[in-house]
């Protein structure tokens, strides 16, 4: 395990330049460049607000702001975009870099770490933009904002854990990538991002509590919209599920690493 972290440390420059290249190549030769990183989620929020604000704003109690629904959407989106980017890119990261894995010796864990790094850069930009948008809409952030990094770490751990498991399995069974495109979409709608938990039938709430993203997204909304510090009772399922899934993901990754190169 020590060697594992030592290898990551030795390759830190490579990881840094991979993240930089990843961001650069995604926006190479586009006029607006990195601004697209923020524009896309913001546009999505704008669309949902436009379509659903009339229906939803009435259901958002305890907040006195005409743009309350947009604020609610934006905070949920912030959590979801980090999670879904890490999961969906981890699923294909080994297949996409198959020739690299086959031909060059380097710590293979650099690849998912690069995915996490570039997703984090994206997400921090989005977070800053969210704060700015909140301020423009007349909702100044409070000190509870300082809790966001902790939630981000949990989201990353959860996403990376799930992503590693699915990414490793996807090398052997490529259907996983196809299935997960649909599953992630379904998962998005099963998480209270666009709607509030108040409209969920009470008997469905038991099922909803099994979804770790439910806990994370509600905490994000609590922090950003209501200025409420996280409740330790709801942090518990988040931390436990993130830790368990990350451990499982790393275990599987280490076990399957040699097998993976054989079939790539």
């Amino acid at each position: 395990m020590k060697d594992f972290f030592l290898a990551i440390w030795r390759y830190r420059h490579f990881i840094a330049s991979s993240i930089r290249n990843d961001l650069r190549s995604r926006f190479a030769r586009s006029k607006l460049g990195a601004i697209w990183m923020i524009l896309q989620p913001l546009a999505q929020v704008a669309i949902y607000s436009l379509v659903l604000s009339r229906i939803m704003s009435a259901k958002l109690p305890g907040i006195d702001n005409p743009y309350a629904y947009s604020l609610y959407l934006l905070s949920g989106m912030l959590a979801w975009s980090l999670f879904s980017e890490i999961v969906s890119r981890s699923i294909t990261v080994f297949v996409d870099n198959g020739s690299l894995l086959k031909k060059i010796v380097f710590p293979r864990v650099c690849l998912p770490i690069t995915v996490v790094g570039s997703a984090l850069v994206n997400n921090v930009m989005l977070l800053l933009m969210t704060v700015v948008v909140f301020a423009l809409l007349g909702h100044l952030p409070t000190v509870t904002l300082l809790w966001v990094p902790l939630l981000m770490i949990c989201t990353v751990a959860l996403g990376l854990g799930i992503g590693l498991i699915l990414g490793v399995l996807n090398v052997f069974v490529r259907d996983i990538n196809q299935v997960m495109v649909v599953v992630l979409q379904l998962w998005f709608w099963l998480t209270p991002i666009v709607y509030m938990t108040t409209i969920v039938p009470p008997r469905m709430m038991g099922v909803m509590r099994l979804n770790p993203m439910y806990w994370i997204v509600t905490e994000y909304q609590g922090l950003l919209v209501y200025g409420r510090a996280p409740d330790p009772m709801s942090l518990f399922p988040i931390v436990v599920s993130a830790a368990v899934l990350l451990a499982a993901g790393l275990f599987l990754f280490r076990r399957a690493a040699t097998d993976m190169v054989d079939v790539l």
Partner: protein
Amino acid sequence: MTAPVLSVENVGKSYREYGTEWRRFGTWVGWHSRRIKEHWVLRNISFAVQPGEAVGIIGQNGAGKSTLLKIITGTLGATEGKVRAAGRIAAILELGMGFNPDLTGRENVAHSAGLMGFSRAQIEGLMPDIEAFAEVGEYFDEPLRTYSSGMQMRVAFSLATAMRPDVLIVDEALSVGDAYFVHKCFKRIRQFREDGTTLLIVSHDKAAIQGLCDRAIMIEKGRLIADGLPQQVFDLYNALIADMENGSIKQVEADGQIATQSGTGEAVVESVHLESADGRVVEYVGVGDPVELVIRARLREPVARLVVGYMLRDRLGQAMYGTNTSYSDQVVANGRAGDVVETRARFDANLGVGTYSVSIALSSTETHLVNNYEWRDLALVFTVANMGRSPFVGHAWLPPVISVRCNGAVLAAANGGADEGTYLVAGNG
């Protein structure tokens, strides 16, 4: 003997057939089904390489060469056995891997050098060298997508060889690119070798292996079947290609060198010798002298077509000249068992000074791949000496008429190669 820089100990690689992926997933958590089939692509490979040695690895496609190289570099794990390496291994089989077309040459070099495990300080130190060696000029700071494939290859090679490795693995990849740069590459590889780098070269190109290597290893069907001088191993390789279907291969000692024989045996070589112009058997031949190669073959069984071929080789085993009786339309048709076929080839020994060997092939067609009755390397060894000709270098004797004018005045022509040399006749004639 010093400690080997690379030692491969009983390495084997098997691919498993799981039937269903569930059985594969099971092995990760310790459940091994008995229905998993193992399929060995490499088995019992052992060899050690000393510092500064150059070893060629040959074998037919699919023999397991690249699997072996991947295990040596470390990208593939061995199923059994171990590879020990003392020092850094670099491989020129991944030229340009990980390059990004939207980044400049410089950025790509920095990024890929990181992938190779160099620290940032090392990369900065090596950069001027890499830029100078690549010789792509201002393009070095242009996006890679504007490069020609040759330019990409230049940058990639410069990077791969920026720092002298302890073991350098060279794949056939090197044959791409322009002639000037390929020469430059080989110069650098030779320089590395003089400085103590061990080379592992994979190629089908006999000349490249014989020119660079002092040892060759042959892999066939996942096994190491020969390890020795490049020429011997190549002879075996040729024999093996000829004998894919039937027949036997054996190597016999002849004149201190190992000769390879193979064939199905319907026709066998009885004797091979060289005669001088006056009919005496010779082993030493003067440059340019007329000689006659006499090949006696005996048919053991009826043979519908018999083609007799021969090949003259230099001491490294490089082909100097070869032909056969199919090319000259002198095929023996419907030979009976017991027939003796004597083939005489008269030619002038327009060869450079050195020793030469003769390989003989008895087959049904001009290629010995169809019906190979007998293939015999080193069937005869003879020496060419320069007796009375003006001195020259090289493997061929191409006597010129040279005229030199100095300020309009013609310099007297030396008595070129046109004079009649005396025969040096020796041996058991």
